[in-house]
């Protein structure tokens, strides 16, 4: 226990240490978080009138971000499935970064629902009268928190084992890994059901919402990981192979293709039928009764997603600059598609046919940016303390060097035999073999 607290304490101290780029990055994020806290305090005092939401458009930027981030969190599974189901070796070591990202994304998603509440001070009412299983929102509470715990357990366990130079017990994490795979799909499905179960909102009341959510998330999530893995690769000693990035590229390409196909199906059904239910889609894509605030958003998203998809299909996107461009386009494109393109238009026109447009206010934008900054801050810290553990630079002094016999410091930089590695996370690798990314002076670690 003391040892575990000592581990946390060392991680805590470590999160403040880095060169000027790290310090600047963390400083900027902290300032953004404080601006967000300030904006939220204003909202807490004055009410949600500080947002652009109205009785007509009663959900906006917060719920849009929430939806998007649930998808990002679920996308971590796209690293896990290839490794644990298809035994893909290249992604093996990277799973933990995907899961750390899932933790950060879920934290952001939970914060976004919390700031959307009119009475956050009554949050405990959820514990006292829980409308389960009737309300889909209660399902969402369960699956999101469950997913958070699952990922915290898997990452925490593997990282701590690596820190202690202990062989992780398969029983303690492999079942959870497989549970997390199913669970990841469930979080985004349940979130889609929040919307698609409402008969009064024809724009959402469509069976394609859940599959489309998953497809777009499985494109945007891995795209984000492609970018962060390159940052990890250039900023740390941790090794990320090109092959791993290219595997992610394939996943993104397939997911995005499915997403575009589903979009096409949706558009065909809406516009070919052209029933009264087309109103929201009409408003979104072409404007309705002279009101057209969302047109620039959705066409930008379509353009970004299309360009990204074309780039991904070109061999040129095997090179990082092109791949990164495609990833950035896709991350932003899918964000617009799920926010301004899915949450907001369902409210326009209102169920009584009134057209009231929505535009986020500055305060609401600051709160949102603050939550994003918090999530990135959290992810940065998690990665910052995880990398040295996995590379064997941060180990428990008491167990270092004696858990698996004498260490062979500084010898093998590359795995001699990758195929011999059993199923297991990167921590397992770090524990059962001498660290692969040793710095010559690794022994100087106290």
């Amino acid at each position: 226990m003391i040892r575990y607290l000592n581990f946390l304490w060392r991680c805590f101290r470590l999160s403040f240490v880095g060169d000027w780029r790290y310090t600047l990055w963390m400083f900027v994020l902290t300032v953004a978080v404080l601006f967000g806290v300030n904006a939220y305090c204003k909202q807490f005092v004055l009410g949600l009138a500080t947002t652009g939401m109205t009785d007509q458009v009663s959900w906006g930027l917060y719920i849009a971000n929430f939806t998007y981030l649930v998808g990002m969190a679920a996308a971590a599974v796209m690293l896990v499935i290839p490794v644990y189901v298809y035994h893909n070796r290249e992604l093996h070591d990277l799973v933990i970064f995907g899961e750390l990202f899932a933790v950060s994304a879920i934290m952001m998603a939970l914060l976004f629902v919390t700031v959307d509440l009119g009475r956050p001070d009554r949050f405990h009412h959820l514990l006292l009268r829980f409308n389960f299983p009737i309300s889909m929102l209660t399902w969402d509470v369960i699956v999101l928190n469950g997913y958070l715990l699952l990922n915290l357990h898997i990452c925490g366990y593997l990282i701590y084992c690596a820190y202690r130079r202990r062989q992780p017990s398969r029983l303690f994490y492999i079942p959870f890994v497989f549970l997390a795979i199913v669970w990841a799909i469930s979080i985004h499905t349940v979130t889609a059901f929040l919307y698609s179960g409402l008969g009064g909102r024809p724009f959402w009341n469509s069976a394609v919402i859940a599959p489309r959510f998953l497809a777009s998330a499985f494109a945007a999530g891995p795209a984000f990981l492609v970018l962060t893995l390159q940052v990890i690769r250039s900023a740390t000693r941790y090794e990320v192979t090109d092959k791993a990035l290219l595997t992610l590229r394939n996943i993104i390409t397939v997911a995005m293709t499915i997403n575009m196909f589903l979009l096409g199906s949706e558009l065909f059904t809406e516009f070919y039928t052209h029933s009264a239910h087309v109103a929201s889609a009409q408003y979104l894509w072409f404007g309705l009764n002279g009101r057209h605030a969302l047109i620039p958003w959705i066409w930008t998203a379509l353009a970004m997603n299309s360009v990204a998809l074309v780039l991904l299909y070109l061999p040129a996107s095997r090179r990082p600059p092109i791949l990164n461009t495609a990833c950035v386009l896709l991350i932003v494109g899918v964000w617009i598609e799920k926010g301004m393109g899915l949450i907001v238009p369902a409210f326009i026109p209102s169920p009584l046919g009134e057209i009231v447009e929505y535009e986020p206010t500055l305060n609401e934008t600051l709160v949102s940016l603050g939550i994003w900054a918090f999530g990135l801050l959290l992810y940065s810290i998690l990665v910052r303390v995880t990398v040295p553990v996995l590379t064997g630079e941060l180990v428990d002094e008491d167990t270092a060097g004696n858990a698996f016999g004498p260490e062979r410091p500084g010898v093998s930089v590359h795995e001699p035999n990758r195929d011999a590695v059993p199923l297991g996370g990167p921590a397992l690798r770090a524990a059962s073999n001498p660290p692969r990314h040793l710095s010559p002076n690794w022994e100087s670690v106290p």
Partner: protein
Amino acid sequence: MTTRIWDGPSAGDAPTTRRSFLRNSVAAAGGITALAAALSPLRELAGQADFSVAQFLQKHYKEMSAQEMEAALERIRSEVERRYEIRPHVRDIRPQAGVEFVYALNLSRCIGCRRCVYACVEENNQSREPQIQYIRVLEMPRGTLDLEKGNHHYDRPTVPDASHFYLPVQCHQCANPPCVKVCPVEATWQEPDGITVIDYDWCIGCRYCEAACPYWARRFNFAEPSVPADQINPEMSYLSNRPRPKGVMEKCHFCLHRTREGRLPACLEACPTGARKFGNVLDPDSEVSQILKTKRVLVLKEEVGTLPRFFYYFDERYPRGLDPDAAPIAESLGHLPAPDDPAPTEHHS
């Protein structure tokens, strides 16, 4: 060899020197100051009554004992007294056995004067700034029930307009209410007499019910509601028209503090044309039972399967201008239609 953003963990475990201690102290002090500045808007909370311990500990409506309910009512009384300097008469009025309320609205008679809207606001202590209204009247072109063709913001010197009919919409008190289904904390539910109510002290303000309602019947308190003290209706009940706090939902409750004691809803009493009918559908002799049996009745958005308890109907004679009853109504309001112009029954709004 590429440069590293951070160089090993050893720096994190470095011993504290005087210099690093000073640097860390300055950074920590700066951080705390910045946090305090960020939190500063919270100081304004000091004066707000919204966050009392008694309210925080209050149970869900259905779980409160008679004593606890009395304590809650007393708390509400003293809050109203402090805020509006009026001692209100706040009760918890329960439904009667053998009663199921329904509303029937005569589309042939409604002239779109919006008196129901304002009577409702006054009766139910709805916020005047920002303005909250439970009833929305749509001006519909003849020949359609497509709500998207309706005009919410018609502003005529006189109503009705001959080429339109008027469609007031409020909570339909559905027998299969989507709003109740989606509420994560059971803050809204259907009472035995068919009225869907909200416990304003239990709602967490997630607005899922607002997204689920196909009739746009629910309203959210985006800001602290405000009612001029001299316009407060002191006859209040827990589940209906007591003042609501910021951040919760509210909606039409068929004036349950009146109707559960045999009176009629405020919107009905305010209607100058008798277009609004209300009563117990379980009583076969009630006016609403007769209307449902004999008139041409319809419900809004039947296809969404909500089974509304709010019915619309047409008189046998349509359009309205040809209705012999229309002339006496207009007369009673002081507006005689021109004898050769059968259509508009005029009324200054």
